[in-house]
């Protein structure tokens, strides 16, 4: 149902508990295909049910908007709060989590709200219609292969699509047993499995500490945590550290766990080679100089049967980039969305929260989601945002954003990391493009950017659309100069069967979910046409 704009309560007032539960949405997998093909409309569509999306959806719903929360997973929580399915009967899911109570609280609010949580929805595109409303296009099913694509209309859109892990290639990184650090964490959190018994954790960023302590707590031997950066850069900005004590506490909790399990942490070091024929048998760890160049003669071999590796996270922003949202370069060389003080993007009617604006963690994501949900309600209900109620949220958001930028700068890859690559190291995993071919495209054929490298070598043209090789190709294309951040420009956020595209005809019907045709959002200036890919 849609709240009318004449209701007197201020948008920042207490949540209304008397809203009846919306019924326009259907949970994927619970209805026959034919029923799921119907187009439905809401006040707000939220993409992503992690910390930011959950907070935004429940906040907007509590203020009276009809909300659909679309998520690819079957359970809320996103990656940070990923947890076992109920049939696995985990009595203590919090044992694999930091700050589980915050998620439990969001889940309670979701259950008590009128939000339609649509699971198994993989949004592949969002489009702004001529009347100013939005359409979200989604595939359905666990991996998007169910024969029931859907289109969902909304007056406003909140993108809370999170992030994926950044990888920097090295010899042997395609061997089975080499997994993403976040990947090992994800498989452990939801599937209760480990990739091996002796797992080296390597790369850069605070996630490594969390991953290593999880793996060790779950019974793995962790011979070493290998961190490419030092942690000294954090000390250059004492203000951000002092004003974010919870981050320090979190780091100490992980450090204590590592000490308890006798896991050594090696700073300014990297895994520069993986050994094994069909799976990981050992890794070589080398010291790095200030520019992340491996120091000759420092390589030490560590026996292990798995390696969990990652270099921080990359905001997942292609849905927004495809409709022309402005981005900002982040200190670590990735792109985040450029957002205003109330989380709105440069495209009116499209808000974003959480890692999409720059990676900063679950607590920041919750604050931004809540802020966005309130701002959207204020816009759609035609009321002034309750300044008093959002001021505190905004202050917390700004404080945590400042820390996020410090963290991003501290773990930015040094230019010397490409010294790990041999010419036959695959850079692009999907298309099996080795570093030598990329270097040839740059040195011999004149490629100066990742797009040209892609056209000449196919690097970034495969299934993952350059997510795994994007950073590496950008760095190699820059040839020693400062690399351009990977553009995150992908016309389709997930692979879409041609049959789904062929079936895209007919208008979007407004549905009983709203009281009549949706009103366009009051226009503001700024380009809204999709940018041609």
């Amino acid at each position, binding site marked *: 149902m849609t709240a009318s704009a004449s209701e007197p309560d201020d948008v920042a007032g207490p949540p209304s508990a008397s809203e009846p539960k919306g019924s326009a949405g259907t949970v994927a997998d619970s209805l026959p295909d034919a029923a799921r093909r119907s187009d439905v409309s809401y006040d707000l569509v939220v993409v992503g049910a992690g910390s930011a999306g959950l907070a935004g959806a429940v906040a907007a719903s509590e203020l009276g908007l009809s909300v659909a929360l679309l998520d690819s997973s079957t359970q809320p929580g996103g990656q940070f709060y990923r947890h076992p399915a109920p049939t696995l009967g985990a009595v203590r899911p919090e044992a694999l989590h930091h700050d589980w109570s915050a998620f439990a609280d969001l889940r309670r609010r979701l259950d008590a709200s009128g939000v339609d949580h649509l699971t198994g929805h993989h949004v592949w595109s969002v489009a702004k219609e001529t009347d100013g409303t939005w359409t979200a296009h989604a595939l359905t099913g*666990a991996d998007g292969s169910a024969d029931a694509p859907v289109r969902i209309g909304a007056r406003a859109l909140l993108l809370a699509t999170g992030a994926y892990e950044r990888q920097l290639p090295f010899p042997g990184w395609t061997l089975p047993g080499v997994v993403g650090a976040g990947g090992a964490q994800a498989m452990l959190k939801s599937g209760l499995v480990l990739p091996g018994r002796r797992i080296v954790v390597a790369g850069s960023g605070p996630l490594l500490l969390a991953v290593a302590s999880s793996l060790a707590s779950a019974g793995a031997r962790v011979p070493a945590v290998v961190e490419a950066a030092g942690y000294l850069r954090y000390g250059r900005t004492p203000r951000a550290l002092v004003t974010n004590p919870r981050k320090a506490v979190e780091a100490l909790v992980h450090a204590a766990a590592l000490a308890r399990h006798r896991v050594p942490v090696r700073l300014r070091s990297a895994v520069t080679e993986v050994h094994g024929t069909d799976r990981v048998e050992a890794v070589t760890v080398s010291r790095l100089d200030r520019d992340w160049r491996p120091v000759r003669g420092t390589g030490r071999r560590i026996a292990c049967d798995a390696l969990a590796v990652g270099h921080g996270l990359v905001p997942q922003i292609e849905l927004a980039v495809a409709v022309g949202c402005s981005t900002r370069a982040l200190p670590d060389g990735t792109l985040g969305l450029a957002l205003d003080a109330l989380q709105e993007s440069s495209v009116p009617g499209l808000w974003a929260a959480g890692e999409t604006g720059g990676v900063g963690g679950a607590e920041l994501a919750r604050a931004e989601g809540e802020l966005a949900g309130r701002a959207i309600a204020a816009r759609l209900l035609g009321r002034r945002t309750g300044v008093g109620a959002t001021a505190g949220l905004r202050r917390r958001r700004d404080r945590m954003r400042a820390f996020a930028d410090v963290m991003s700068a501290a773990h930015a890859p040094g230019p010397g990391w490409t010294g790990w690559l041999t010419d036959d190291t695959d850079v692009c995993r999907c298309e099996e493009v080795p570093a030598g071919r990329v270097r040839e495209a740059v040195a011999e054929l004149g490629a100066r950017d990742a797009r040209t490298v892609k056209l000449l070598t196919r690097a970034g043209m495969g299934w993952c659309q350059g997510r795994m090789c994007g950073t590496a190709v950008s760095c190699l294309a820059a040839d020693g100069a400062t690399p351009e951040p990977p553009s995150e420009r992908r016309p389709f956020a997930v692979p879409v069967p041609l049959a789904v595209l062929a079936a895209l005809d007919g208008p979007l019907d407004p549905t009983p979910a709203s009281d009549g045709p949706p009103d366009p959002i009051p226009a503001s200036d700024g380009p809204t046409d999709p940018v041609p890919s």
Partner: protein
Amino acid sequence: MARTPIGLVGAQPDPPFEITFDGRPVPALPGQTLAAALWGAGILAWRTTRDGGRPRGAFCGIGQCYDCLATVNGEPNRRACLVPARPGDAITTQEGHGHDRLGV
């Protein structure tokens, strides 16, 4: 008792069932993905690449890298890290693009 993921979260799962990988039985717990069941059995690779014929399995664990593509019940290119295991599922090592029968 050895520390295990199951012990850590105090899991009391529903009874396991069987899936197969290239014909050999693999136990799966209800609620695990195909990739989790395979990892649980020590299997880390279930496809070979198009060009080099190299083994690959789950890498990113969250459906973004497409390394974990498998042929499931005869259907190629299913992301094993996302698809829940069901009793009797037959996973077969996917050779290359998995569409050999199309003759492309």
